[in-house]
């Protein structure tokens, strides 16, 4: 695949929860091997948009989309597309760490097993834990319960778990919001490292975080009708220094939240 071609192309995307239109006519492209930050006030639809990229919204019975998302040039929502296969190619990390109540080892092994991994599982687990900068802390206690880890370690375990499946994209929904500042920095550094080999879309409430980690930033807002729409999308440096829209400027300078 051409590295310059966007990995996702979103066109006229709307999403409804029953009659409520949570997203309105979103048009955007997600750059490959870049970190794209989604920012915007609470309730503007950042998580909703993020879940469109790996079809997690399929699990919400009331959710329904209009418009189109192309992933690697083909329609993500085509009836022939298997959503479970898509989700093994597009990983997701959630706001709260959600390790399985199993051992550290089994947490990482889970995705490998269900996706029929044929290689050496132990090796894959070590690789993923190293990538998630967790290996040194847990290598002697792989059989211990994941629930015994600290919050920050749990979140890195969840990242390792997502990486083990070797996805092309990792979606992160405020991955550091439940963590303390030091654990947050560790996650941010990890995200930057991962962007060398993965495409990352990250939702964040934290302006500094968006400015620090991301290459591109998309700013969403909810209109009068509470529908989220895309205000502005561009290089992070441009969005934070010379935003085109006054609303973006107002938001990033904290004049409204």
């Amino acid at each position: 695949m051409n590295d310059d071609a966007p990995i996702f192309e979103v066109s006229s995307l709307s999403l409804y929860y029953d009659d409520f239109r949570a997203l309105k006519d979103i048009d955007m492209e997600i750059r490959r091997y870049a970190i794209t930050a989604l920012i915007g006030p609470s309730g503007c639809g950042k998580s909703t948009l993020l879940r469109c990229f790996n079809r997690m919204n399929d699990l919400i019975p009331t959710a329904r989309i209009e418009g189109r998302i192309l992933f690697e040039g083909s329609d993500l929502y085509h009836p022939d597309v298997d959503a479970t296969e898509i989700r093994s190619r597009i990983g997701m990390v959630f706001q709260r760490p959600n390790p399985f109540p199993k051992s550290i080892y089994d947490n990482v092994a889970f995705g490998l097993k269900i996706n029929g991994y044929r290689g050496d599982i132990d090796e894959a687990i070590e690789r993923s834990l190293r990538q998630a900068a967790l290996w040194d802390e847990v290598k002697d206690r792989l059989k211990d319960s994941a629930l015994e880890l600290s919050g920050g370690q749990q979140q890195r375990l969840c990242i390792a778990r997502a990486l083990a499946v070797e996805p092309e994209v990792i979606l992160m929904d405020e991955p550091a919001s439940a963590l303390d500042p030091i654990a947050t920095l560790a996650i941010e550094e990890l995200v930057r490292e991962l962007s060398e080999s993965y495409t990352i879309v990250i939702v964040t409430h934290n302006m500094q975080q968006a400015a620090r980690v991301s290459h591109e930033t998309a700013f969403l807002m909810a209109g009068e009708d509470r529908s989220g729409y895309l205000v502005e999308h561009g290089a992070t440096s441009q969005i934070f220094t010379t935003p085109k829209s006054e609303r973006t400027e107002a938001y990033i300078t904290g004049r409204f939240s």
Partner: protein
Amino acid sequence: METTARGAATVRGDRAATGRFRRRRGASLESRVIWWVFFLCAMLSVLTTVAIVFSLLSQALSFFREVGVWEFISGTRWTPILKPRSYGVLPLVNGTLLVAFLAAIVALPVGLATAIFLAEYAPDKVRRIIKPALEVLAGVPTVVYGYFALTFVTPQLQRVFPDMIVFNALSAGIVMGIMIIPMVSSLSEDAMISVPRSLRQAAYALGATKLETSVKVVVPAALSGIVASFILAISRAIGETMLVTIAAGATPRMTANPLDSIQTMTAYIVQLALGEAAHGSLEYNTIFAVGLLLFVMTLCMNLLGYWVVRRWRQAY
């Protein structure tokens, strides 16, 4: 910050000063009466348990004065009424466990599958039909199950096993299994429903199918509750009386063959209690020995169930 604190203090001060919130007169007497009413109600069950244990023990004791405990526990011939008399309880234990085992074979898989279906798959409409149906199943009197086994299930089974006699363990075991399905399914479903949604999402986000999510994430996470439901259901099967009295026969026997006629501990107690044995006779006292053993067995099962729940409970 400071003003809020002071504000709160003022409100408290006001209450005390104006007495607007002063307790109604007599409230403390009332609450003491209520305390006693509730306490006595709660004590009723404790006292009953104590009384049962006491009466079982005292009568069983007079049995064991004449028959050795070891002879009772390890003997394989149970003929307390016929000569030569023999008081080995194992044939009755055998009958009880055989029926409970057959019931478990039916109820555990079906009950668990039902729970998975209800917790993970069933749309609300379907659930609204199945749940009440299960409750009805749980509410059917056991004597009805007994006649269902005897007059419906046994004849069907006899088409498959023409030599099988009318009173047999298989029919009673199958129907007992059906009877305890609601217990397994509702307790297991509760355990599965309390597994946080975030775990399911984690599984789906890794590309798991619904079946993989249910079987490899939800069921293991709910395992303590599921195992406890199994144990409690089996305990119920061990203690169940009417169904086996009607359908399983009255032939104490060491056998692993489900087609045999057997007798369970409970069915023996019923048989003897309804018979002619004189109160206080050795024959009569056998039912207390058997009852005590039954009580100990189900008590152990229940304790095991609670232990499993507490020991393995996940603190997600």
